[in-house]
């Protein structure tokens, strides 16, 4: 077992609304690792990266820093690919 994490910033203008949240969850479910996405600040929240509801509760607007954490034997590749979704702005903008 291993863990991996990556800090990213939400960069698409609409933020982490339902569609990107589902895109993230679809990809997260392709990995065996447990995936957690955490938000700090005034209203800290840790979402199960495989739950659409919890990902939407993050309500992460553009500019919000998030931490993606994976725990499992494919943690490295999971974090790498999940972070790329944010870098590519979920195909938006």
């Amino acid at each position, binding site marked *: 077992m291993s863990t991996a994490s990556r800090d990213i910033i939400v960069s698409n203008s609409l*933020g982490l*609304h*339902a569609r990107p949240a589902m895109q993230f969850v679809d990809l997260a479910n392709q990995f065996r690792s447990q995936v957690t996405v955490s938000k700090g600040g005034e209203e800290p929240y840790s979402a199960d990266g495989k739950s*659409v509801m*919890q990902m939407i*509760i*993050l*309500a992460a*607007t*553009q500019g919000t820093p998030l931490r993606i954490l994976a725990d499992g034997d494919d943690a490295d590749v999971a974090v790498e690919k999940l972070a790329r979704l944010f870098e590519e702005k979920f195909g938006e903008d």
Partner: protein
Amino acid sequence: MKLMDFIVAEAIVPEVAATDRDGALRELASALAKAEALPASAVDEIVAALVKREQNGSTGFGKGIAVPHVKHPMVKRMAGTIGRSVAGLDFAALDHQPVFTVFLLLSPENQPQQHLQAMNIVFSNLQKDMFRRFLRQSATRAAIVDLLQEADQRP
């Protein structure tokens, strides 16, 4: 933000007459128009946008709930309503189960932060088993409003 900041009490439909998704979306959008939370002339276009949104990816997120939503230029002020289906509706939900509670949310186009906040408060509540169960059991508009107001008072 609180639920009752954007849920229009008079537009709540305690028993949806429609037996299919598109009919339910129309019923709820029409209820918002009747409550003057949406121009009546916008209903057709809003329903079309909601249906298209569902076709791109179901908002039936599982556990008997669906949260259809759109951001649309004809919506001047965020407005939401709730419809309850006793028989259950086919929303092509993620868990392939029927939907008994529909949370409809309409947002103006240029306020993504407000939209995310509203989705946050809706899902924070819908995630609670008790809230979902009580909502499904609330057979009148007054009972649903009571439940929402109680939820709003919890920290």
